[in-house]
């Protein structure tokens, strides 16, 4: 039973990393998305954070997404007077996404994902060993 709890926990860890990847890829894809109309705001970077919760049914500690919030730091200002949506000084507001940071974060997510996968594989080999005991005695 405890082994299944371990699998369940590791699976929740993987799910959470997948959601993190989604948020990161949205950030990267929108790293140059300016406002859709004059005087509007460009794409604002999203941040994901996690929490631990005890699942009542299986009594396993699961990881879950606490919230997907926004990064309220200032937008980048690019000097581009030719752009139709530039303000009166010729500056254009660009998203507050730093693609380098997102890439590093992605590598971290991949590493944690692999570690959780490793746990699931180890648990699986332990369970199959136990079963082999039954068949060969």
């Amino acid at each position, binding site marked *: 039973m405890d082994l299944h709890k371990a699998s369940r926990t590791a699976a*929740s*860890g993987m799910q959470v990393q997948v959601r993190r990847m989604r948020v990161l890829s949205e950030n990267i894809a929108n790293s140059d998305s300016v406002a859709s109309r004059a005087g509007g705001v460009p794409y604002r970077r999203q941040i994901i954070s996690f929490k631990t919760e005890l699942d009542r049914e299986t009594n396993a*500690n699961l*990881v879950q997404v606490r919230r997907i919030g926004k990064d309220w730091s200032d937008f980048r200002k690019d000097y581009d007077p030719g752009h139709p949506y530039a303000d009166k000084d010729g500056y254009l507001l660009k998203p507050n996404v730093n693609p380098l940071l997102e890439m590093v974060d992605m590598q971290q997510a991949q590493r*944690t994902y692999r570690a959780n996968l490793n*746990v699931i594989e180890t648990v699986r080999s*332990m369970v199959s*060993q*136990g079963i082999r005991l039954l068949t060969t005695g």
Partner: protein
Amino acid sequence: MLKDITLFHMIQKKVDWSHQRMSVLATNIANADTPYYRPKDLKKLGFEDLVAPFRPPLKAQRTSATHMVGTKPEINFRERTGSKRKHYEISPDGNAINVEDQLMKVNKTSSQYRMATALYQKNLQMLRKSLGGGK
């Protein structure tokens, strides 16, 4: 019935401990990015824990009917409560999990489990042989 043999009881305890530890380690790894999370672990399984039911405990003798005899409840594999402060490598978001360290513990637990099951198999074989039948 097999549990009355000390050796098999020890193996059973080791297997139970391995299962619980895998669960705790999986929780640690899954929380490798959760802010303010500290790693948890089980206490080491010592020889006394393994043979505990076979050693008669020293009980206080009741010399009078008005005296009380207390018993401590059996605790199953206490989690290590940080009486000795371990030094963690804490990241800026407060998380203190070192993934490589946890994976190494997973490997150790897995190999201990494998050893326990192999011992079980071997001893069962020997038992069968001594009973005069089977492979």
